[in-house]
């Protein structure tokens, strides 16, 4: 595999079994959030298997009424690049130094929420799937390792960033969504893309 598989800071290395966070058992249970994030990380690895580097930034196309129809969906390169933007932001909102997990600045406009996902016919618009995926896994691992040292009480505090605070009243809320549900939403898109390209179930 071309992406790093780093043993989890919590939970089992395969991300499929739960651990017990001996330091905290009250409140929102940071353990549950991070164990879910490890499971999500493991699922992401599975979903990337078999994707061709030459197709990773392409959109599916079908013939409809005699004409080619390009399906306007997010492709794997966009998805993984987009997801790679967030672990450092989560860290910073928790008061951690997220600099080491930050994606290259140039990626922000290209891959931010609301940015169009472009069918990269010539393969010149996006970094490769390998590069954005490596950034995603590296940043996620740094984020999860950092959060593993945080006390549950922190989860009740509001995010530092005003935009994040608008969507999530507490850091716990933000962590649950950003490390689990947001990634899973895009993994669902990736799953559908896989099937369009004739790849088998990743599960």
């Amino acid at each position, binding site marked *: 595999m071309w992406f790093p598989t780093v043993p989890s800071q919590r939970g089992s290395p395969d991300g499929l079994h*739960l651990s017990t966070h001996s330091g905290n058992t009250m409140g929102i*249970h940071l353990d*549950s959030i991070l164990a*879910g994030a490890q499971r999500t990380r493991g699922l992401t690895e599975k979903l990337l298997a078999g994707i061709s580097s030459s197709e990773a930034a392409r959109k599916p196309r079908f013939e409809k009424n005699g004409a080619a129809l390009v399906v306007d969906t997010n492709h794997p390169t966009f998805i993984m690049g987009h997801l790679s933007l967030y672990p450092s932001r989560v860290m910073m909102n928790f008061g951690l130094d997220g600099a080491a997990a930050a994606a290259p600045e140039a990626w922000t406009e290209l891959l931010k929420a609301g940015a169009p996902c472009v069918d990269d016919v010539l393969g010149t618009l996006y970094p490769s799937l390998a590069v954005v995926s490596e950034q995603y896994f590296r940043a996620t691992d740094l984020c999860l390792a950092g959060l593993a040292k945080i006390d549950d009480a922190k989860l009740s505090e509001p995010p530092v960033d005003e935009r994040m605070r608008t969507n999530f009243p507490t850091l716990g809320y933000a962590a649950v969504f950003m490390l689990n549900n947001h990634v*899973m939403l895009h*993994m669902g898109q990736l*799953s559908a893309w896989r099937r369009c390209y004739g790849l088998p179930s990743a599960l």
Partner: protein
Amino acid sequence: MPVEDDSAYPAFEDIQLSFERSLDEVMAVAKSMNDEGLARETDQDAHGFVKDKLDTLAKLAWHESWHEGQLA
């Protein structure tokens, strides 16, 4: 595995209604519970998939996100 056969499934509208009804019931139960109750083990064997009742709710949202992504 899904099959391409309308007759194999209930009507889509019925499935949506059933989903919404069951989700409403889950949310009502969740709102009626306190932190202590949510921290208790699940009533049934979850085979390691969830840690406690709170985690059951988290995994419910996690699972829904996956399939919503397939639809998005």
